[in-house]
């Protein structure tokens, strides 16, 4: 592991607050556009508009967990503490998006399918993915030593990521109901535009959230190290 970072090279805000403001404004703009511009669906009416947020949430969730996997491997390879903190930040944001995907899907599923929940392959594997990352975050909360926490959560993150396609496959064998994806060619162009606008809005928010959580954890680590230094009389 690299030497603990001194307080001097803590991340600086730079242009990040501007990026944050842009991300939020883009998100609000995408919502307004989705509600105003697109015509109600022939079968589902306004209910269809949940898809503008449900589908991008699922996309961004997958992307975020790919970020966790990437930084977990990078940590095991280079043993840099910052990579572990980035993986943890991404895992928190990914779990939030995962929860959002599940809840939005349920709100849509109740009127569309008539049930809040069904044991379909996608729903079940998304729920299992959520539980795996709840376990990941619990592990981080219960282990104090930073090196041990980093090493273990990298292992748990990678094992969890390996498991996701396996869970999906086995539950699909068990039963399936979720509709297959629509292709952009079969739907109204406004739907595609709104879906993509929301996907970018969620992407910007995701990047901003990960950055904020990462900065916060860097400050937490710096505070811990400062407290240690004081306790050891090396201030």
């Amino acid at each position, binding site marked *: 592991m690299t030497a603990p970072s001194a307080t001097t090279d803590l991340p600086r805000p730079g242009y990040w607050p501007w990026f944050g403001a842009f991300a939020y404004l883009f998100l609000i703009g995408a919502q307004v556009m989705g509600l105003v511009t697109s015509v109600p669906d022939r079968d589902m009416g306004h209910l269809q508009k949940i898809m503008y947020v449900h589908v991008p949430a699922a996309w961004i969730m997958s992307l975020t967990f790919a970020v966790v996997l990437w930084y977990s491997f990078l940590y095991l390879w280079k043993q840099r503490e910052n990579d572990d903190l980035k993986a943890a930040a991404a895992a928190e944001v990914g779990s939030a998006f995962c929860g959002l995907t599940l809840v939005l899907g349920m709100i849509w599923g109740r009127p569309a399918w008539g049930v809040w929940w069904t044991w379909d392959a996608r729903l079940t594997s998304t729920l299992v993915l959520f*539980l795996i990352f709840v376990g990941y975050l619990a592990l981080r909360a*219960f*282990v104090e030593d930073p090196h041990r926490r980093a090493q273990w959560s990298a292992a*748990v993150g990678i094992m*969890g990521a*390996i*498991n996701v396609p396996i*869970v999906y496959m*086995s539950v699909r064998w068990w039963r399936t109901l979720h509709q297959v994806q629509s292709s952009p060619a079969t739907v109204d162009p406004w739907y595609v535009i709104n879906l993509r606008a929301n996907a970018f809005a969620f992407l910007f928010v995701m990047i901003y959230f990960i950055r904020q959580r990462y900065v916060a954890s860097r400050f937490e680590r710096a505070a811990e190290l400062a407290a240690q230094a004081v306790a050891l009389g090396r201030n």
Partner: protein
Amino acid sequence: MAWKDDWRRVRAIVWKDLTTEGRSKAGFNSVAALGVTILVLFGFALGPDTQALRDAASGALWLAVLFAGVLAFNRSYQVELESGALEPLLLYPGARWTIFAGKLLANTIFVGLMLVIVVLVGIVLFQVNIPDAWPKLVAVLALGSIGLVSLGTFYAAMASRSRAREVLLPLLLFPMLVPVLLAAMSASKALLSGDMMHEAGAWMNMLVAYDVIFVVAPLLAFEHVIEV
């Protein structure tokens, strides 16, 4: 011969773990008793209707093994942690994966013996008709417990050394075990009901594939987990 030395290390760990367990027997007895107790509780939950009991038998049996097995996995490290023996064990020369392989074998024997008791009690309590294809059922039990024990042994290496190990191990392990349990439950359920749809074979193939993945991945990752 390097692999002969590795095999000797694996055997030494198996021998050590089983001897410690065999001298007290308290661990095995209590875990097996817990497995039987869980089966009895499932019996109460499902009611006295014979057909309902038979339909739920395979699920109840696997969950009983799972809940009792979780206690066994943490135990397998606890003895070493309490006596401060884990660090010396890691200082011995040789590859670290042999420690995992040894513990995996010892735990498989432990859970296998528990499985014999739980299955026999389950057959009686849930009034299961033993199918003609019972050797296949034995194979499903063996394959299912290998996947269960491999992941359990791996996650217990972390959970047993953290705070709140009692809650952390199930929280990490159970979601990971979904594919193994689903395949094992579906295969045993199909076999118990006569395998009319010929689906048990497919589930067993999947179980073999999962076992390979879930034994190889922890073998590779164990080194990173145990060294800190």
